[in-house]
């Protein structure tokens, strides 16, 4: 079946398109029905994360998704946002995100409007995104983009068919 590439302006609506395409190609590649929900969620997460990063840096560059159907079904989602420490800080170490620490910064101090604005819903989302991905996908790698710009989220799943 070969390769399908998708590239889209960093708008939330297109993340849905990416999920749609990802699932369609995965099914045709022979990915088992039982894991299609995970594939859908993982592609959505990787794309939402890329869209969020582009928007945070006011980048209109397209987010890129490459889908390759061989013995494995491989998905690569590439963003072009500068890899800065803020991003890495906000995302944390995917294997060791502490949901209480990350999310409930206001709970110990009994909360307050000022505290709450420190961690927005979007920050929480970006924070749990890689945690979710690493929990969902056994074969996951997050690598720096070419030329040191952006990151690439690479994921793969077993596929039944190779054509």
């Amino acid at each position: 079946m070969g390769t399908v590439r998708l590239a889209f302006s960093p708008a939330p609506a297109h993340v849905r398109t990416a999920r749609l395409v990802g699932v369609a190609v995965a099914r045709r590649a022979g990915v088992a029905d039982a894991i299609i929900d995970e594939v859908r969620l993982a592609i959505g997460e990787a794309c939402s994360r890329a869209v969020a990063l582009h928007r945070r840096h006011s980048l209109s560059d397209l987010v890129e998704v490459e889908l390759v159907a061989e013995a494995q079904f491989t998905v690569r989602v590439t963003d072009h946002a500068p890899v800065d420490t803020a991003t890495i800080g906000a995302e944390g170490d995917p294997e060791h995100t502490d949901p209480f620490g990350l999310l409930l910064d206001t709970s110990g101090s009994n909360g307050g409007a000022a505290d709450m604005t420190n961690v927005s819903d979007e920050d929480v989302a970006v924070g749990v995104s890689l945690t979710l991905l690493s929990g969902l996908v056994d074969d996951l790698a997050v690598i720096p983009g070419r030329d040191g710009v952006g990151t690439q989220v690479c994921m793969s799943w077993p596929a039944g068919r190779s054509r």
Partner: protein
Amino acid sequence: MELSLSARSIGDRTVLEVGGEVDVYTAPTLREKIVSLVDGGARLIIVDLTHVEFLDSTGLGVLVGAMKRLRMVGGDFALVCDQEKILKIFRITGLDRVFTLHSTVEAATAGLAG
């Protein structure tokens, strides 16, 4: 597929029934709805995820924001979910330990600290 939202009152509890896909595209609508319920005086909110077909980290972010918002005004917040696919997302992210999760609206209504 599209997000559906419908709120009803059971005594002093507000039950928000959510259906469809809660994702990066629809999460802002869910957030606005919860904010407007809190602004309208709701303090004990149950979000019923029984008919949710898809939930991603953006949706989780909105739910966390809702809980924080309610705690700040002295309210309380609970979730209803019995779908393994969705529960798994809470478990992977550790949010099953952060949220109060019930499998039915009845259990959630009884459980909320009024």
